[in-house]
């Protein structure tokens, strides 16, 4: 099956899948492939890493990027100039209050469909699309139901596995969502050390520590693969992420689908569930994001906010002051460049923030 990688949560995986292609929402690593691509100064390290990995990853047949930020818009052009896999730049409108904006999003999905057909995909029938969407919706419901039981790092990794198209854990997620016991080695932990002997004792200590931890919200841009270390660093410093509002977290999952309307017009449902529902920083005005934050922060009882942003990301950078004003919570503006390989500087800053909160 041909593989299409993408980055933005506004690209519906089920649209790609319905064309018979394998969608992979790529969380790039911090590895070397990116180093040769694009200028360093002024370029978002996430965009740079994504472009580098998409261009060098084996088995990638196409790439979909979006206009949701200037850096990614321009990265699409850079990637296309590099002679790698075919690139589709999807125009996701920044405005959302007019019918024209939703219409543009829908038109862009259809244009993307033609691109996917060009890659070897097949246009889906209405029923075929509806079935694919339903299947994704069911899997996503299981994911949503399980997230609360997974712990912050586990939840982030579960979303990443879902985005990567891995279905192997679906059954476990469903069990977990129904209140079954988690399978920590598979779902909640990825590091070997935590699977070793004495894990049960360590878990007890950890549970005690977490019960005393300072609840925090993590909001901001996308995480790279290695960035899940952030959750560990926060826990080591005495905090606990009770709300993951990063672009890589549950905030950017599409809304659940209306099954009845899905059968009538599945494409329209895609538009509503994605364009009509995902709150994000690039939207103008960005009302929905701040409503979401207000609601979720209140529900989470977070005592502080860590704003995770890639350097040169103006959209998140400009939100720091506003977050402080509107939430009244302390905000740690954590700018990351991808060059802090040991996570030392980042860890130190988190530590200092936690000391201030305690």
């Amino acid at each position, binding site marked *: 099956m041909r593989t299409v990688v993408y980055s933005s949560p506004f690209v519906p995986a089920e649209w790609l899948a319905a064309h018979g292609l394998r969608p992979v929402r790529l969380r790039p690593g911090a590895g070397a492939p990116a180093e040769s691509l694009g200028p360093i100064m002024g370029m978002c390290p996430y965009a740079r890493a994504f472009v580098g990995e998409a261009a060098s990853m084996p088995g990638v047949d196409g790439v979909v990027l979006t*206009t949701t*930020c200037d850096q990614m818009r321009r990265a699409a052009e*850079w990637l296309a100039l590099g002679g790698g896999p075919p690139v589709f730049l999807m*125009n996701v409108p920044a405005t959302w209050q*007019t019918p024209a904006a939703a219409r543009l999003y829908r038109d862009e999905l259809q244009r993307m469909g033609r691109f996917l057909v060009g890659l070897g995909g097949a246009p889906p029938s209405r029923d075929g699309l509806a079935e694919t969407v339903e299947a994704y919706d069911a899997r996503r419901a299981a994911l949503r139901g399980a997230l609360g039981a997974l712990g912050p790092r586990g939840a982030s990794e579960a979303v990443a596995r879902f985005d990567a198209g891995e279905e192997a854990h679906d059954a476990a997620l469903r069990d977990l969502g129904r209140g079954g016991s988690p399978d920590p080695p598979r779902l909640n932990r990825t590091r070997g050390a935590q699977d070793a002997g004495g894990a049960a004792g360590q878990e007890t200590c950890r549970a005690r520590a977490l019960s005393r931890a300072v609840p925090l919200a993590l909001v901001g841009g996308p995480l790279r693969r290695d960035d899940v270390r952030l959750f560990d660093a926060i826990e080591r410093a005495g905090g606990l992420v009770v709300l993951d509002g990063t672009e890589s977290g549950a905030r950017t999952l599409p809304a659940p689908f209306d099954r009845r309307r899905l059968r009538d017009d599945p494409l329209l449902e895609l538009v509503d569930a994605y364009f009509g529902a995902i709150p994000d920083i690039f939207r103008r*005005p960005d009302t929905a994001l701040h409503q979401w934050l207000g609601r979720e922060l209140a529900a989470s009882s977070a005592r502080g906010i860590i704003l995770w942003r890639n350097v040169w990301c*103006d959209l998140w950078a400009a*939100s720091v002051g506003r977050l402080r004003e509107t939430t009244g919570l302390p905000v740690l503006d954590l700018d990351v460049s991808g060059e802090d390989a040991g996570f030392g500087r980042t860890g130190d800053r988190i530590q200092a923030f936690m000391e201030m909160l305690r």
Partner: protein
Amino acid sequence: MSAAPKRLTMAELDRLCRRRQAAGAPMPAYAGPLERHVEEGDRRLLKLQYDDSAAALRLWSFLLTEEERLHAARAAGRKIVGTMKDLGTVPVMAYALPNVVAFYPDGAWWTPCVMELSEGLFGVAQSLGLGDAFCPVRAMAGAFVNRAHFPIPDLLTCSVGATCDDFSAVAQRLESLGFPILWWEMPSRRLPDPGEPAVTLPGGFRAPESQVALVRSELDRIRAALAELAGAPLGDDELAAGIREANRVRGLLGDLRRLAYTADPCPMPALEMLIAEMLAIHFCSDRAESVAVLAELLAEVRRRIDKGRGVLPEGAARLFWVNPVADLRVMNLLDDCGARLCGTEFLFCHALDAIPEDLPPMEALARMALADPMVGPAADRAARVVRDARAFGAEAVVVSRIPGASHCALEGAVIGRMVREAIGLPVVELEVPPMADPMWPTLKTRLEALVETVIERRKR
């Protein structure tokens, strides 16, 4: 004036101005010695070099009195529209209404330079969370908050979508502070797909008809808002008349650019040409006067060319300049290094091209808006640079990076690559902060090296 044209310090220019005033030379009411602006804080003026013509003095006076004009318009009961980011489209519509004045709050990005940071706009911006990582346009937020510069507009519009993130972020921050904004969508311009209905835009880019239709519908929302603000209809007839007037400005600028960028010796310094081009985007808040200012400047250039005179030595290295400089003084540096301006792309070439008059006005405006070099691929912009550099006979290209601007990192690389491949010209990338003094030796050395390269290449 019988002596050869030359560049003057501000003190010399002011002496000349006073002599003209004493001699009863005709001058508009706003024209006068620039010293008065220094007294108001525009200290950078003391460090600039100016063309010695009456036309240039008028240009500078016109530029530096814009805030006074806006306040006078407010006092006279005229409606003020702050048009953000689109650089050239909405003002054409706004000035089609008799009681509306439009300006770009974006223009505040030059205030920290002109006032040598004494105005504190960056400090205010910093306090709002808009620090050094943002493009100097963050000064605009400071100007809204401290209300010490332009009057707060009655209506604020901002194009978003395919725009710089800096601008979108700063504008959103403004809205969060209680300045309502009418956002309108500018799609990312793309090449038409095979078989897709398409049009050629002013300036030569191609775009799908569907994108033009979307922009047209967005501009219709602006039209309705302007009409409501003005309390008067903004029909096709008014718009068509507005387009004709805008084209007068563009026509004058077109002639001025063609002559100033091709004649040797160079008849007009780089700094005055930068200022003149800026008039195209919103007429410096007075459309009729901008026509008069440009007409006088054009006449001066024609006179000099007829007499074979220039303000710079003959044979200066011919540089094409990409992006406006945050520090105006760098335009002087270009001249000082043995170079001269030979074509520009200051982010708004769509505001220089004639707006089609043979189309329904909204269609024409939509096509013009979509021709914005910033909303399409950098390759489009590079192609325009290549075409214009070739047409003006440029010998090298300078890509002037704007500190913190989200578009500059990749765009400069693409433009540089395409220029080298297409026309084989040397390309230099510079970063120009709002106060470039600490970087002066570096900038000077790099420009001098580029000039030497150009001169050396002439020997081949």
